[in-house]
């Protein structure tokens, strides 16, 4: 059985390939028949008419051939419709052969029904709704039976005015009356289904958001135009009771040829588009092979698909969470006027593309994108995941620092508003006790009270320094510049402030800068031979640079390193960096650089 199948399929392939020259040849043959007896139909009347007939039929057959390579049924339906366009030539009296003449008698009105079928079934080749199937069934019944087979049974050419015609092989009984009324009913029925199918085509064109609409649009539009023209022909023929060949119908026929030609051109156009997309895909494969850079996939896809705003998002574990290549959270679905297409592999969404609507309508292109980007998507997704984790970590560090600062601030307020107030109250109470007449009379008691008050004042002073060290009120109320000024009043070595940003910065940034300055100056003051310290805080765009420089001698030691670790954590939590520059025996600069908002 094994070898038989390839043999069969080779035969099938040969037959399939042979169909197409045969179909084209069929058109040529039909034209020759038309030329042999020019009066009977339009195709033979002039060279132009002949070319129009051949061009229209071949255009649809050609479109069928192109479609057939991907979708067999749809292609064959189109090809059949193209061939049916030539059928009216076959009931030509000059055809000679009776069989051919009889074939023409039965099929001459088939073309509109077959075009309607091919158009409604495009591009899948199948009629998708019951309404479509009903309309096409009615069309075939009308064209093949009411206008074709049934009248042929009662048509005797010599008795009904065609002495030159070959014999009608199907003739059962010559009944001119029945022949005529069948034709009239066929035309009436045709008026109904043609308008219905044309309306179906127009409705499908106008329906928003349908997938593949763009690909099917030229076929639907051409088909609707063709059916409306055929409808006009039928309407024109109704009073006569027969489809005829007068001058007006000749023009309608030419227009029908143009409509069919448009179907062919439309399919050719979508073929060109697809080719473009394919060459874009080829370029994509080459580019991805060359440079797998971070964020690069977006660039490459944007370039090769021709959408500069294209974005790539990667789902992280939880499908609700999407990040871009840098690990930053994004929400592609919420952007207005953008479409989102998932790239799925084995049922799992590996990435989402946010793009111009319509760009990725063809599932074939999406498949090619998935295939071409497989490696790059995997790489970038892993990288995005790591970067997202890094960002989360940084955010959590920043939260820890912020919480710590809030706690310090609360503590400072509690000390000021609670403990310190109470001590002041106590001091007042002592004073009131001291001025009591009883106390004034006793010098010992007065001395004790005075001593207690003195200690109380010292405690108040110490508490004040403690609170200030925990979180200076100036920092919270008036910002970095005020806090550093206050620090300069406190410090035990001279602080020279070169520059300070005068506008407020985000709280965590101000706190990081302040504690860096306070801690390092506090430490530098303890060094032997400590000279003055220079403080320079500058804003460069959205970065803040904090420089604390000691000009005197003194080498940074372990103690400084230990103090800087905590500060480096604080600065790092904000996405900044801390470094120490030391010139041996000379200047030491502690420099922090961190983002400070926009």
């Amino acid at each position: 059985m094994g070898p038989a199948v390839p043999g069969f399929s080779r035969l099938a392939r040969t037959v399939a390939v042979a169909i197409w020259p045969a179909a084209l040849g069929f058109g040529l043959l039909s034209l020759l028949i038309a030329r042999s007896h020019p009066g009977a139909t339009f195709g033979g009347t002039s060279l132009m008419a002949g070319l129009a007939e051949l061009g229209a039929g071949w255009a649809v057959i050609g479109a069928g051939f192109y479609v057939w390579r991907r979708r067999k049924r749809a292609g064959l339906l189109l090809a059949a419709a193209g061939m049916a366009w030539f059928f009216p030539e076959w009931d030509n009296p000059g055809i000679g052969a009776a069989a051919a003449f009889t074939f023409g008698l039965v099929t001459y009105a088939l073309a509109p029904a077959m075009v309607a079928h091919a158009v409604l079934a495009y591009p899948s080749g199948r009629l998708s709704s019951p309404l479509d199937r009903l309309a096409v069934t009615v069309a075939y019944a009308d064209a093949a039976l009411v206008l074709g087979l049934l009248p042929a049974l009662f048509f005797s050419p010599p008795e009904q005015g065609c002495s030159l015609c070959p014999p009608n092989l199907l003739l059962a009984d010559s009944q001119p009356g029945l022949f005529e009324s069948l034709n009239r009913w066929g035309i009436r029925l045709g008026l109904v289904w043609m308008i219905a199918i044309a309306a179906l085509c127009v409705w499908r064109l106008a329906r928003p958001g349908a997938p593949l609409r763009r690909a099917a649009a030229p076929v639907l539009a051409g088909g609707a135009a063709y059916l409306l023209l055929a409808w006009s022909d039928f309407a024109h023929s109704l009073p006569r009771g027969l489809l005829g060949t007068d001058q007006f119908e000749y023009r309608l026929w030419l227009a029908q040829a143009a409509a069919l030609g448009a179907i062919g051109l439309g399919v050719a156009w979508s073929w060109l588009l697809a080719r473009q997309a394919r060459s874009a895909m080829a370029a994509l494969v080459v580019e991805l092979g060359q440079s797998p850079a971070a964020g690069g996939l977006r660039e490459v896809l944007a370039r090769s698909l021709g959408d500069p705003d294209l974005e790539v998002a990667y789902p992280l574990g939880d499908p609700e969470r999407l990040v871009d290549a840098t690990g930053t959270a994004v929400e592609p679905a919420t952007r207005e006027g953008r479409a989102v297409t998932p790239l799925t592999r084995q049922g799992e969404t590996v990435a989402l593309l946010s793009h111009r609507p319509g760009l990725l309508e063809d599932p074939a292109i999406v498949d090619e994108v998935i295939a071409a980007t497989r490696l790059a998507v995997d790489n970038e997704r892993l990288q995005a995941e790591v970067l997202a984790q890094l960002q989360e970590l940084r955010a959590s560090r920043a939260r820890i620092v912020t919480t710590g600062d809030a706690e310090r601030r609360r503590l400072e307020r509690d000390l000021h508003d609670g403990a310190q107030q109470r001590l002041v109250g106590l001091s007042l109470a002592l004073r009131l006790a001291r001025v009591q007449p009883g106390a004034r009379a006793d010098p010992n008691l007065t001395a004790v009270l005075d001593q207690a008050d003195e200690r109380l004042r010292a405690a108040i002073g110490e508490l004040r320094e403690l609170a200030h060290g925990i979180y200076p009120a100036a920092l919270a109320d008036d910002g970095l510049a005020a806090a550093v000024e206050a620090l300069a009043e406190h410090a035990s070595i001279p602080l020279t402030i070169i520059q300070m940003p005068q506008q407020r910065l985000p709280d965590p940034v101000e706190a990081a800068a302040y504690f860096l300055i306070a801690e390092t100056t506090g430490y530098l003051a303890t060094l032997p031979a400590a000279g003055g310290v220079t403080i320079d805080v500058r804003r460069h765009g959205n970065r803040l640079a904090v420089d604390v420089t000691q000009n005197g001698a003194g080498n940074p030691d372990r103690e400084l390193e230990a103090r800087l670790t905590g500060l480096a954590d604080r600065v790092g939590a904000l996405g900044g960096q801390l470094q120490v520059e030391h010139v041996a025996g000379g200047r030491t600069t502690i420099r922090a650089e961190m983002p400070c908002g926009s």
Partner: protein
Amino acid sequence: MRVVIADDAMLIREGTARLLEDAGVEVAGKAGDAQKLLQIVAQEHPDVAIIDIKMPPTHTDEGLAAAEHIRSFHPEVGVLVLSQYLESRYATRLLQHHPEAVGYLLKERVSDIGALKDAIWRISEGECVLDPTIVARLIKRPRQRGPLDELTDREREVLALIAEGRSNHGIAEILVLSPKTVEAHVGRIMAKLGLDDTPDYHRRVLAVLAFLRS
């Protein structure tokens, strides 16, 4: 002498009032917040309002804002702000806008009835008052070598009293010197620091403070 007292801590408010009354000062009203204070000031027109810097609702600088308001709308009423903070910036903020008849003392001075009375009297005379602890810290503050190092000890004493807001007459009394000697000291100090020896008392205080803070 009539004063009003504003402090949200009842214990301190009442204690201060009793101490002052014992010392012969009439307490015309007591307030727990800035709004009540402004009401009382408008009704009672006291000589001086004693105001805690931290008051409801935010407990930051409501007292300072109320003091500025009183100086602007009731120029005949002097203000004495009591504060927990040693930093000179609140004091400077207060003095800069209205250097006349204002004072800034540390909170714990309320129990030092002598200092409190002295401050109230000076403020009611239109002088300005700055806490000696704050001034001392400003003068002692470490700095690079400069004109301050040129001053003699006596001159430093005089400088501190100028910064505390004392008039030449007051300085003479405290140091037990003749007014002429004090005048000479002041002239030398101002020359050494490179400041204009302005006869305007308030401008002199501000100039000295600005020098010390820089």
